């Protein structure tokens, strides 16, 4: 688990989804320039990391790129970085990009894991979410991927938005598991400030569900997927078994080093977190001018590292090592109290959050540190 991971942020989309706060631009005009700049960026980090055992193309929409561009990128990556034999190689895919040809070529390009942005199997919900594909396209994409031999498919879903009923959501879940995906990410909709939804919400034009509804949806999701053989290993993530957990994403949650390339990508190594500039244009300009496209960095103090460890640990099934929590006189009483109230379990010196604990994982750390 300690090998580093490599993340590539592909900052292009066919169109912007109203809920999404990840950096991307809805234009293809800068793709070629960006690909050249990306090549430059790789050269800065050659030899700085150990052998990677995960590669993740996210975004944005990596599948928005032409196959030949993806091929060019992969070639650069494999030329300049070392990878373990069993490296997990994931690409985030949008159903509307996945023609049979493209789906097939992803296998040829070396991807062994697909994270498919299905979001919902209800077409009215898809249009509320501003998605350009239909549920039919998602189903077709899933069948195609399977037929080309992908054995690790993740389905990404969004739930908990206004107008959605619990029945509607469970219907989507049911349709998702019919394809027996190895992995499911179920994200409760977060209204982010710098998105269209954020602006609408500020004007009072959205009615996000209340806390109780969110809680019910969250528990229903967890229950349903558990009943169908998935383990709930992180707040929003489910896998068929331990070996199908997203190896790459786990690195974020356990302070394992990772290198992020592309605009707005974050890297973490030796207590330092660094991030790239969140603009394709500036990213290109900097690299063209012979500079690394760094937007900022922070050196984490011991206290900050431990605060992150606690807060991240409480979001995962593995929990955290009791010894990692800075001692304070109230800690033992508080742990017992939290255990009695059903927020966590303490087993073999590890603090393991329960589902009730998952529900309040944002504030739970405040009770421990």
């Amino acid at each position, binding site marked *: 688990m300690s090998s580093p991971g490599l993340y590539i942020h592909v900052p292009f989309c066919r169109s912007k989804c109203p809920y999404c706060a990840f950096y991307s631009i809805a234009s293809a005009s800068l793709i070629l320039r960006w690909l050249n700049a990306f090549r430059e960026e790789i050269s800065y980090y050659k030899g700085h990391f150990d052998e990677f055992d995960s590669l993740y193309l996210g975004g944005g929409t990596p599948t928005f790129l032409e196959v030949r561009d993806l091929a060019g990128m992969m070639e650069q990556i494999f030329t300049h970085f070392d990878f373990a034999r069993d490296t997990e190689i994931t690409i985030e895919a949008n159903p509307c990009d996945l023609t049979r040809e493209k789906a097939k070529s992803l296998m040829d390009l070396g991807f062994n894991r697909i994270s498919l942005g299905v979001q919902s199997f209800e077409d009215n919900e898809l249009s509320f979410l501003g998605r350009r594909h239909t549920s039919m396209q998602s189903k077709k994409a899933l069948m195609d991927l399977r037929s080309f031999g992908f054995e690790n498919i993740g389905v990404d879903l969004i739930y908990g938005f206004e107008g959605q009923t619990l029945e509607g959501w469970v219907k989507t879940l049911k349709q998702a598991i019919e394809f027996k995906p190895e992995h499911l990410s179920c994200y409760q909709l977060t209204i982010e400030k710098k998105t269209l939804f954020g602006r609408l919400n500020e004007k009072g034009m959205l009615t996000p569900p209340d*806390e109780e509804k969110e809680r019910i949806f*969250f528990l229903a999701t967890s229950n349903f997927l558990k009943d169908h053989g998935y383990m709930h290993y992180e707040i*929003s993530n489910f896998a068929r078994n331990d070996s199908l957990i997203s190896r790459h994403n786990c690195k974020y*949650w356990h302070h394992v080093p990772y290198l992020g390339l592309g605009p707005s990508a974050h890297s*973490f190594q030796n207590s330092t977190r660094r991030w790239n500039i969140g603009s394709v244009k500036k990213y290109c300009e900097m690299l063209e001018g012979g500079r690394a496209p760094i937007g900022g960095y922070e050196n984490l103090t011991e206290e900050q590292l431990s605060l992150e460890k606690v*807060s991240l640990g409480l979001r995962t099934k593995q929990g955290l090592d009791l010894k990692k929590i800075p001692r304070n006189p109230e800690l033992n009483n508080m742990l017992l109290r939290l255990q009695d109230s059903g927020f966590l379990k303490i087993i073999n010196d590890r603090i393991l959050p329960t589902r009730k604990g998952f*529900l309040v994982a944002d*504030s*739970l750390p405040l009770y421990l*540190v």
Partner: protein
Amino acid sequence: MHEIRNFSIIAHIDHGKSTLADRMIQKTGLVDERKFRDQILDTMDIERERGITIKSQAITLPYTNDENKEFELNLIDTPGHVDFSYEVSRALASCEGVLLLIDASQGVEAQTLANLFAAMEHDLEIIPVINKIDLPSADIDRVKEQIEIDLGLDSDLAVLCSAKDGTGIEDVLEAITKHIPPPKGRADEPLTALIFDAHYDPFRGTVVSCRIFSGKIRPGDTMRLMSNNATYKVEEVGVFRLTREPRDSLSAGEVGYILAGIKNVSDTKIGDTITLHSKPAAKPLPGFKKVKPVVFSSIYPVASDEYQSLVDALEKYKLNDAALVYQKDSSAALGMGFRCGFLGLLHLEIVQERLEREFGQSIIMTSPTVQYRFLLTNGETITIDNPIYYPDPVTIQKSFEPYIKASIYTPERYMGAIMDLCSERRGTNSKFHCPTPGRLEIQFDMPLAEVIYDFYDRLKTVTQGYGSFDYDLLDYRENDLVKLDILLNGEKVDALAQIVHRDRARTRALVACERLKEEIPRHLFKIAIQGAIGGTIIARSTISPFRKDVTAKCYGGDITRKRKLLEKQKKGKKRMKMIGSVSIPQSAFVAVLKSDSK
């Protein structure tokens, strides 16, 4: 040679006293336009923000009138709030006349009246000044009518001005020179000087502001305070310009300052008489009394390891505020702290704000209370200013609480609302007086405890800002007083206890439970808030736990954001007080007294 005029300005808050003072300073050429800072007499930030003057101070203005006579006009500033009525009376005692400043659109207010009566008691010459005549809503005729009928003054003497745009300032200055008599008293008699203010200068010690009634004082003299016979060597005397201006001496009739190496402001008492050790006056000037605190509250550091820092801050603060009294105190819930006595609620708020702002303290203040008296079955009478010390109920024979005479001045149409408010606050024995058509003065006898928290705010609300309020302490009266305990998750929190009238206990308990419910943030656990008398629960409310707050995504960039939020929350939590497993924000301790109607 110049003549002297000593005067003060009486005004309701917002009627433009500070602006008028500024204009006079400007007009007399004490300061050039460029250096002019608005509202020079209000030197402290808080006062500036609140638009009120708290510490009285003086300034000497040179002025040549239209008959070409030279004058030194001593403007003695007075605090503008009911809490400081004694300071006002000492400032007035130092004058021969006052400007009665009235807002042309608002007319006469209760507070103005109270100070006006004080001025009349001192036999001062009163010059009505009608300000804000530039306002479209100005009604000069009506104000003149009020001056004639309501105040019984000659409205022909009234000077019209607008301090804001500078109109009529010359007329005000002329009126001062012509209508206010020069001071009496001879320089060859023994020294009597009235202390009307004192403040602390970190380099020179206490700066005593005084009015010389007779005799003369020079640097090198040994002065004596007549209340306690303490003596000090005079280092410097002078007058207040924009800064201190040393003089060779201060003589009868003059107003100025004395520096005598006095370490603490509290060593000097406002109203005390200074005389010379070598040639003392036969008796002090009349009217000295010790200022007694009427409102009490405890101050605790939020973090117990900040206690020493609070000790230092209070010591420093006290240098400049003789009216604050404090002593060590401790609470089971809040740890070590101080029990403090204040002149009133405004005084309390000023202390709180200055400790936090100027001295960087993070403090918790408990809900303010008054001094109660209990006659015990063994015949002993005890006085307590802290609910913690409420005696065992079986030993209480009789309980007493302080009463005030509240005077409320209001437009007639709010009478009903005021009657409701006052009866809700246990007001009795109401008296009405109708000074002018449409205006009403209502007097009530009311327990002081009922007005110390938000009475003034509530009055302002129910009268849409038109009502004003003033009070005098009356006496102690017998009432059935009980201790209301507040329990959080079954645990008594001593710092939240109050002493209340038995008939009002349930209402007050419900209000306290509701307020705490609003003030205490939701926790992971349910929080039960209970109000109890003795062992009987009489009110309760519950803060339901939050059950879902987790955000869905936590990848690369989200981690930093999430940690920063946690760091902020952690800091916020540090400013709260942990009682058991409940984090209580500072504001909650005072909020228990807030009434519910907004």
